[in-house]
């Protein structure tokens, strides 16, 4: 059976991990925001902005890690706008989030046109190269998939560990989680809910932007319109699927990416019979199915989407 042979090729697993990497960054970003009580629908646009910011920095002569840092800063800046409007101002997180996505996307396209007025195909940069971990990368199948990737992919996995450690093992993480569960208790401790939430949204948005930058600086080597293509929305589904836990969300992202890599290869096997669009639809449909499966027993942060007003209960 050709359909199963795909699962035993190293290239399939390499692709799955590569597809998962930007999702991991952005999912961790969204997870931080939501654990603090803020739904960040700006994710899609912030990923677009991050993809462009990282790429254009390198295009202008910066080195790759500077590009990643600039992308993170741009993401944090959009996060600051989002957090200011949703937290102290208490505006609808739905509306502000969509607004941030529209703003970040259009600002990116506008800037792109100013930087490159008359370019039909965007110039390429030298992206991150694969860095093989000595010895480990020689293991069959697992080696190339896990230990011969770009540094940004390794960073994605490190990010999950750091986010999990901070959330569950540090006072800061406790404060973030409490801000999303029981903000009054945080205020009673003398901490500022608004401050914690704003910080979480900025940090989360920075991670989303790095996820976007992965696309232009590691997965591909240039920026083009529509390149984020709904990945941000999928990450929102992944956070729910992962029950707002970093480890589970990582598993979700990996499963999703494996499925995505599988459908790409399936197109080559079964492409003659089934239209390719049917395969491209599957990731989105899968996300919806996954949401339906977990939604009933999802225990979302209790203060999610409720702006905190001091002195109110």
């Amino acid at each position: 059976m050709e359909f199963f042979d795909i699962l035993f090729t190293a290239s399939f697993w390499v692709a799955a991990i590569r597809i998962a990497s930007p999702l991991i960054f952005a999912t961790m970003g969204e997870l931080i925001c939501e654990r603090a009580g803020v739904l960040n629908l700006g994710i899609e646009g912030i990923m677009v902005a991050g993809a462009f910011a990282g790429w254009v920095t390198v295009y202008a002569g910066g080195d790759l890690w500077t590009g990643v840092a600039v992308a993170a800063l741009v993401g944090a800046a959009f996060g600051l706008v989002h957090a200011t409007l949703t937290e102290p101002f208490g505006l609808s997180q739905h509306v502000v989030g969509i607004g941030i996505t529209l703003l970040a996307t259009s600002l990116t396209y506008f800037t792109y046109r100013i930087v490159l007025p008359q370019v039909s195909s965007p110039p390429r940069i030298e992206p991150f190269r694969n860095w093989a971990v000595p010895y480990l990368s020689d293991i069959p199948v697992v080696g190339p998939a896990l230990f011969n990737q770009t540094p940004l992919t390794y960073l994605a996995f490190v990010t999950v560990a750091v986010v999990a450690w901070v959330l569950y093992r540090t006072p800061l993480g406790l404060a973030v989680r409490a801000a999303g569960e029981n903000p009054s208790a945080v205020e009673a401790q003398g901490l500022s809910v608004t401050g914690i939430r704003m910080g979480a949204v900025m940090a989360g948005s920075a991670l989303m932007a790095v996820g976007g930058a992965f696309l232009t600086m590691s997965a591909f080597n240039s920026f083009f319109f529509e390149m984020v293509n709904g990945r941000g929305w999928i990450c929102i589904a992944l956070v729910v699927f992962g029950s707002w836990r970093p480890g589970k969300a990582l598993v979700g992202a990996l499963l999703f990416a494996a499925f995505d890599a599988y459908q790409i290869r399936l197109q080559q096997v079964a492409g003659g019979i089934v239209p390719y669009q049917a395969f491209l639809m599957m990731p989105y449909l899968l996300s919806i199915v996954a949401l339906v499966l977990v939604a009933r027993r999802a225990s979302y942060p209790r203060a999610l989407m409720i702006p905190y007003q001091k002195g109110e209960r």
Partner: protein
Amino acid sequence: MRLEPKPRPSKIALILYPLGAVAATLLIASLLVMAAGASPLSVFGLVIKGAAGSQFALLETLTRATPLIFTGLAVAVAFRARLWNIGAEAQLYVGGIVTVVLGTGLLPLPAPILIPVIMLATILAGGLVLLGPAILKTRFGVDEVVTTLLLNFVVLLFVSMLLEGVLKDPMGLGWPQSQMVSTDARLPRIVEGRRLHYGFVIALVAAFAVWFVMKKTALGYEMRAVGVNAEAARFAGIPVNAVLMKTALISGGLAALGGFSEVAGLKGNLTLDLSSGFGYTGIVVAMLAMLNPLGVVAAAIFVAGIFVGADAMSRAAGVPSYIAEVMVATALLTMVTAIMLSRYKVRWR
């Protein structure tokens, strides 16, 4: 800082703050125009001239406003009941599909019968597209924001599949486009030689109908009650889930009518660029109108004017036309802020 509701928002504040939002939007746009190396005043002059400087410009603006009225109404209705329909884009395309399927010779009916039949089928199909997420929300507790957003991508791929498959125009030289709908299924032009079509009139009728339903009927009252506080509405005996279903059918139907209007009135066939983000822009239109159905018409014309004007300006002054999208997104954020500030008092400490 904390916010305190003003007991009686002053009339002046209700006018001054939105004006401030417009000023802030223009200020940000000016900075971008200067970054592009042009002078803001001349650029804004060109935008206004391009949007309303001639009969041609004005009719183009109204033509562009037509789909935005439909999607704006769809969003306004849904948001009023706190059904977060971010999928107007998908519903609009489904309306386009239905129009093309029924309008290319499947139903050999004369225009006065064919067009209403297509419109009804369109409304039903669009409604059903949103009914899915609404049922997932009420039965399974799945957030409709994510499902409607994801469905936008599914439906667009579905359209692509149809346009390269069963709906492909055999005479289309390989382009992914459908056949033209028959002349009986076309909406006539309002002004000879201009693109403005009777879809605009249908949009105005729809806006009035939605206003009537929202303000004057029991259903409208129930929808608003569910939007203000679903728990309280349930306690008061309002069948919240049933109201949400009806809201979904109306909202999806309105967005789909936008697809019908674009195909039957403007384009004549279905392509993958039927909509340039009308579904998402509809959210901005609805918010600028503060979810008021009649305000949606004004907001849609305003937003359409920015787009049409920016296109003309871009050709003349060389500032990227994406400035229109930036202005529209900025206007959304500044306007919701302004509306909040006009109703609440900000206390520092």
